[in-house]
């Protein structure tokens, strides 16, 4: 850290005062010496093989905190000098207050609660219109006061007025924050509610749709939440740290497939656990975080926090290993490559399930397919198929679904759907239902403007698209320009709405 760096943060043209404070705090923490880790661990960090996600040199808050908001509303808070909520307005007011006391890696809460379950006891005899008006104001408040795209609300799987109203308001306002996950349970959720959720995806690429029974079972039906981007964690707990392993770099170190599986991967997993234990031990033993009222008033419990064992670069790792075997099969496109990926995921899952950590959920870490940060170059997030080479969305799901059973704390597959789906949202419903039925833990679709759109009823040849690239690129500029103009509001607001998790350090 140099004073010049602090000075450039302080005088930055684009950051708000609050954002500057955040980056200055990160620099201060980074000026402390790193925790006491093994030499091998330090070498793996320096080589870019394992990564601490820039969580800081001395963690004083968990990465993700999922307070039991329902309990909070029912009991109030001695520390905050608040009585229990008696009606809807009081419930919203209490939530608004507590959100400002829930830390996370970004300082902004990543979890805002299973809001329909939390709020339903307080609706009293409010009319639909009254609920709509209150939720709408609450939604605007969240976006303007806690502007982080990773701040996450959960709803569903039951059909209720809060769930329906939140979906309606979210589609109407099209805000970046809060992010939204809709829980789906085939046995509980009516089709027309799922239709409303999938219609919303066509309008604003939200919500994500979580496979409720899969997640609920993974946490012994003791409660869970989806937070930030696709992290599934215990309710009333969370994640103390996330450390991630770059499988691409691990694969490069291996002589061949067997060397990777038998020796190199297990060795780097061992190093991962060293970093995980050192980081979480500091948080739990030195930082005094668990002396806070969140813990003493029972909104969280220390034993419901677990480290997330993240991985990324599966696609590159598989392709590198296939090349070492002189096999041309590619991840996402060829069965043999996909199967190697599934084998690696299974192995990782077995390692994580059988390795004790100092502070974990039932003494264990949770495997996570990590979704990438802005600094990643030439490496694909999690177990995704590399951008630009994805097969059609159904083939995508079928190629990757076998991974989903292994990633307890979340897996971030994103399906890119061309914008023709906007005129046919039923197709989004079909796709979501198919993916969840096949075993997807979480369905996330991004409706993109894609110049590779197939024209109605015509079979467009890929070669022709290539031939017309030159002409296409000229007019596509106009097209994209128009698209950008349509989205101007969003573009303008980007500096206000931060995404600290993907941009974890200050870049001049």
């Amino acid at each position, binding site marked *: 850290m140099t004073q010049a760096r602090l000075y450039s943060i302080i005088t930055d043209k684009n950051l708000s005062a609050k954002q500057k404070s955040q980056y200055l705090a990160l620099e201060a923490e980074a000026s402390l010496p790193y925790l006491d880790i093994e030499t091998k661990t330090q070498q793996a960090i320096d080589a870019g093989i394992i990564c601490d996600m820039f969580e800081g040199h001395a963690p004083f808050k968990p990465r993700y905190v999922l307070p039991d908001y329902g309990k909070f509303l029912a009991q109030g808070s001695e520390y905050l000098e608040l009585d229990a909520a008696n009606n809807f307005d009081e419930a919203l007011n209490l939530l608004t207050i507590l959100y400002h006391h829930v830390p996370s890696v970004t300082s902004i809460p990543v979890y805002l609660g299973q809001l329909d379950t939390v709020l339903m006891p307080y609706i009293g005899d409010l009319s639909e219109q009254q609920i709509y008006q209150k939720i709408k104001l609450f939604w605007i408040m969240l976006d303007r006061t806690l502007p982080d795209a990773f701040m996450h609300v959960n709803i569903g799987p039951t059909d209720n007025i809060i769930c329906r109203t939140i979906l309606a308001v979210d589609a109407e306002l099209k805000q970046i924050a809060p992010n939204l996950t809709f829980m789906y349970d085939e046995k509980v959720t009516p089709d027309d509610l799922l239709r409303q959720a999938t219609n919303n995806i066509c309008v604003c690429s939200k919500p994500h749709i979580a496979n409720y029974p899969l997640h609920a079972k993974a946490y012994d039906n003791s409660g869970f939440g989806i937070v930030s981007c696709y992290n599934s964690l215990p309710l009333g707990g969370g994640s103390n740290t996330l450390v991630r392993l770059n499988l691409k770099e691990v694969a490069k170190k291996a002589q061949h497939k067997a060397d990777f599986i038998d020796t190199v991967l297990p060795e780097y997993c061992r190093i991962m656990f060293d970093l995980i234990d050192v980081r979480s031990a500091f948080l739990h033993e030195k930082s005094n975080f668990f002396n806070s009222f969140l813990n003493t008033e029972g909104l969280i419990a220390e034993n419901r926090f677990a480290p997330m064992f993240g991985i990324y670069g599966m696609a590159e790792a598989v392709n590198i290993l296939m090349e070492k075997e002189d096999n041309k099969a590619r991840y996402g496109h060829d069965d043999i490559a996909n199967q190697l990926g599934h084998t690696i995921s299974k192995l990782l899952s077995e390692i994580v399930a059988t390795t004790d950590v100092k502070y974990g959920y039932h003494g264990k870490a949770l495997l996570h397919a990590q979704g990438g940060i802005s600094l990643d170059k030439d490496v694909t997030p999690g177990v995704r198929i590399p951008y630009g080479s994805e097969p059609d969305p159904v083939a995508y799901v079928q190629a990757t679904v076998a991974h989903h059973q292994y990633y307890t704390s979340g897996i971030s597959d994103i399906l890119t759907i061309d914008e023709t789906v906007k005129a*046919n949202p039923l*197709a989004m419903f079909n796709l979501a239902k198919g993916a969840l039925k096949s075993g997807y833990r979480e369905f996330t679709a991004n409706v993109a403007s894609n110049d590779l759109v197939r024209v109605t*009823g015509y079979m467009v040849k890929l070669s*022709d*698209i290539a031939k017309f690239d030159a002409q*296409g690129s000229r007019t596509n500029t106009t097209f994209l320009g128009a698209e950008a103009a349509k989205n101007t509001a969003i573009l303008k607001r980007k500096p206000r709405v931060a995404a600290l998790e993907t941009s974890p350090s200050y870049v001049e």
Partner: protein
Amino acid sequence: MLQSDTINFDKKGIISKILTFSCVDGPGNRLVIFLQGCNFDCISCHNPHTINHCDHCADCVASCPTGALTVENNKVKWRQALCSGCDKCIDICPSKSTPKTSSYSVRQLLELLTQHRHFLNGITVSGGESTLQLAFLVELFKAVKANAALSHLSCYVDSNGSLSEQGWNKLLPYIDGTMIDLKAWQNATHLWLVGRGNHRVMQTINQLAAHNKLYEVRLLYIPGKTDLLSEIDALCEYLNTLPQQVIIRLNAFQHHGVIGEGLTWDKCSEQQMLMFSKKLVARLGREVLLPSVYT
């Protein structure tokens, strides 16, 4: 549900492509089966390689960079596993065809559909002109409707409307909807553009509408070349006789895939399309579907 004992599961279709995800070929996500062969020869055709069946002239074989094409017993053979999809064979074909077709039995397609059924709202047959393989379509749709795991899938036909009344009568019991192209208003214009008149097409549209099996009518707008704009009053008077729920979808003429004279024609711009659609909407009193992309 239909009895399966009258179905010929071995009936085969000549297929140029199958897509397992499409949101532009009927309601919801559809598995789309493109059948080879067409009885129209449109100057504006966007996939002319689907018009004729391969005559095994073998002109394409030498052009294949990966050795996926060979001649065996005087027939051109295509090995999909070796194919890189570069389409050089299609470029070189002198007969508006492709060596890259496959023969699928009804049984094989049922297996494919079973594998994808949870993702699908239904299936759509397209082309080429799918109804040229009428007997195959009838067996396929009968088999889908008779299969407990698949009978929820809706069956749609994308057609140029040339099939005879008797032909449609054979399909009607097994299909849920159709998408029909109306490419020109005057018979003479239609004849010039596609090589056949449009009386049959309009009779098809009327017949399908009467049976409540007409999902969508598609108008291909080629500015300055066809008469959909100059005849817009007569066209809309006709379209207004159709049930209100029938979707009117506009397609803009573009250059993708087009060969020959069509390439010298101007593409339809977004502005031209919007002007045309505005006039249609004013006369129809309801919305029409517009293309989402112009190139």
